[in-house]
């Protein structure tokens, strides 16, 4: 009896807490001045507590185009594992990200290589994403100051246009970035400007679908402004959020010897 009462009380408390959280979420959404909070919510929404997704990445160049199928595991904001499953030529290539550090595994040479700082600016697997784009995706929260530029509407949603300026000592080369966040926390656009306010590259969402229980970006494209015929498109085939992830997933040993 006593145990049951305690359980009920605990459940009530949880409900109350959830309601409070929900409320505070509304409260944050309502006065949208706090751009930093908007960005944090969007990143939290995108990363969730953990996730597993299957992605097709298409790289387009003037003379060729190729598509890779990739599986991605994430936990929190600091741990990610990326594994290529197709085409057979690239299958098995994997990348492990722990905080700002990055390791890559190539089955052909059966070696784990730590990506040195000198290579962090280079392209990741030949795409228009750099190693830094992957490793530092969550830095938007800590290393920038954010300002709400305005609001737009998209499919009946409000879209916040936020300008993010890197802090003085932030390891970011961009002059500023403009992020468009829909009020359900889906990121619609992420534009990178150089320090003379010239647009350098842009990540644009072209399709939003409900997957893994919430609307997420299903198709997005990264393109450099100065290379019109070249882009990288990422299509999410499948995604699950908040799933339990095996303890040893984000380790160098798992990077080399897949156990999932």
């Amino acid at each position, binding site marked *: 009896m006593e145990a049951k009462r305690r359980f009920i009380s605990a459940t009530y408390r949880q409900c109350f807490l959830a309601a409070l959280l929900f409320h505070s979420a509304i409260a944050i959404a309502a006065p949208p001045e706090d751009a930093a909070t908007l960005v944090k919510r969007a990143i939290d929404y995108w990363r969730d507590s953990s996730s597993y997704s299957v992605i097709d990445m298409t790289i387009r160049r003037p003379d060729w185009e190729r598509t890779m199928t990739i599986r991605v595991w994430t936990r929190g904001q600091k741990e990610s594992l990326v594994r290529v499953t197709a085409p057979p030529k690239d299958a098995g290539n994997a990348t492990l990200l722990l905080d*700002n550090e990055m390791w890559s595994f190539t089955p052909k040479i059966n070696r784990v290589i730590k990506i*040195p*700082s*000198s290579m962090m600016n280079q392209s990741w697997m030949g795409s228009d994403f750099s190693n830094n784009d992957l490793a530092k995706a969550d830095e938007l929260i800590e290393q920038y100051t954010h300002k709400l530029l305005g609001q737009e509407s998209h499919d009946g949603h409000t879209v916040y246009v936020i300008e993010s300026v890197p802090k003085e000592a932030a390891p970011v080369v961009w002059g500023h970035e403009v992020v468009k966040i829909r009020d359900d926390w889906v990121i619609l656009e992420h534009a990178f400007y150089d*320090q003379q306010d010239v647009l350098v590259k842009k990540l644009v969402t072209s399709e939003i679908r409900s997957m893994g229980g919430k609307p997420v970006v299903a198709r997005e494209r990264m393109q450099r402004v100065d290379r019109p015929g070249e882009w990288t498109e990422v299509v999410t085939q499948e995604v699950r959020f908040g799933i339990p992830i095996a303890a040893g997933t984000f380790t160098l040993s798992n990077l080399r010897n897949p156990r999932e």
Partner: protein
Amino acid sequence: MRSEWRAPLLLTLAWRNLWRHTRRTLMILFAFALGVWSMIVIAAITRGSMEQQLDKSILNLTGHIQIHLAAFRDDPVIEHRFLPPPALSAALAGADVMTWVPRVRVPAVIASERESAGVTLVGIEPERERGLSFIPGAVTEGRYLEAPDDPGMLLGRKLAERLETGLGRRVVLMSQDVNNRVADRGFRVVGVFDTQPRQMEEAYVFIGRATAQQMLKLDDNITEVALMTTDRDHLEELLARLLVAVPALDVQPWTVLEPLLVLTRKITDVVLIIWYAIVFAAMSFGLINTLLMAVFERTREFGLFQSLGMRPAHILGQVLVESLILLALALAAGNLLAAATVYALRDGIDLTSVAEGMELVGVAPIIYPAWSAGDLAAANLLVFVLGLAASLYPAWRAARHVPVEAITRV
């Protein structure tokens, strides 16, 4: 007493004989003066260019002596850092050390919005680098670093162009911290520097020493101490003192750090000697020829001298004194001419029109001739001694005539 009037007699005879043929004497004098002039001027230019190269290399972050951890010179990475021991600063407090600086020098990558490049990151103490390296005087745009914890960065002009960035813009430096993790930080370019050779502009970026230590989690560790002494050619005593003070560290003079410079110096010496030899060989033929001619046309005269009782040694002396006067006059004229030339070129020989090619071989576009007492003495002594030696043959020919034959010769 006798020798007192004899020497002036020989001198008078020699002097008068010389000016019997004014044109011939002036011609050989001119040839000799030209030779001496070319020896000295070419030595001054070569020496000047070499010394400049040496000074430049020493200012290009070399210094007179560098102190590292033993493994650093083979593998200049952050693992080979050290905490400067108190004994080191005590040993460096001597009067023979003009100035010394601690530095952090590690490989890094610099990135702008569009490009990235591999560079050597140098953390410096801005004020103390004055007189020790080129960087305090090389900033041509913006400002120099103000303190060891200055948050700004100095970027070379060529690198700034390559990265498509410039003064006032931010760039990102990436390297490895002491824990082997990625260390990266944004820096604003507060100054752009120009230097020769221009490869230096691409090879190095400068930030404050404390900023570098913080970025790389070095605490008070450094990777290098460089120092300037009062005399770069006599470092033995200081080296010995430093070896005793910090036996665990690798103390090396510039001659070891830049062996190419020492080699260049040696090659310069050899090349100059070869040049001297060639010029002198050409001159000596002229000298011997002139003296032989003079001796030949005076055969009867020498015969008469001998008949009147002059000893062959004095005839030999007479010709030698003639040669001596000739050499002394030529040397004086050559040295004067050379001095005037070097003085006229004191503002440097401007070779900027071919600067690019010169830079390839490490020579600065403006050469400042430099006197060297050694080169000057070598040229003068060589001409004087070998000139006298060369005139021994004509003198000996003059002295060994048989008087009767000489007098009767038509």
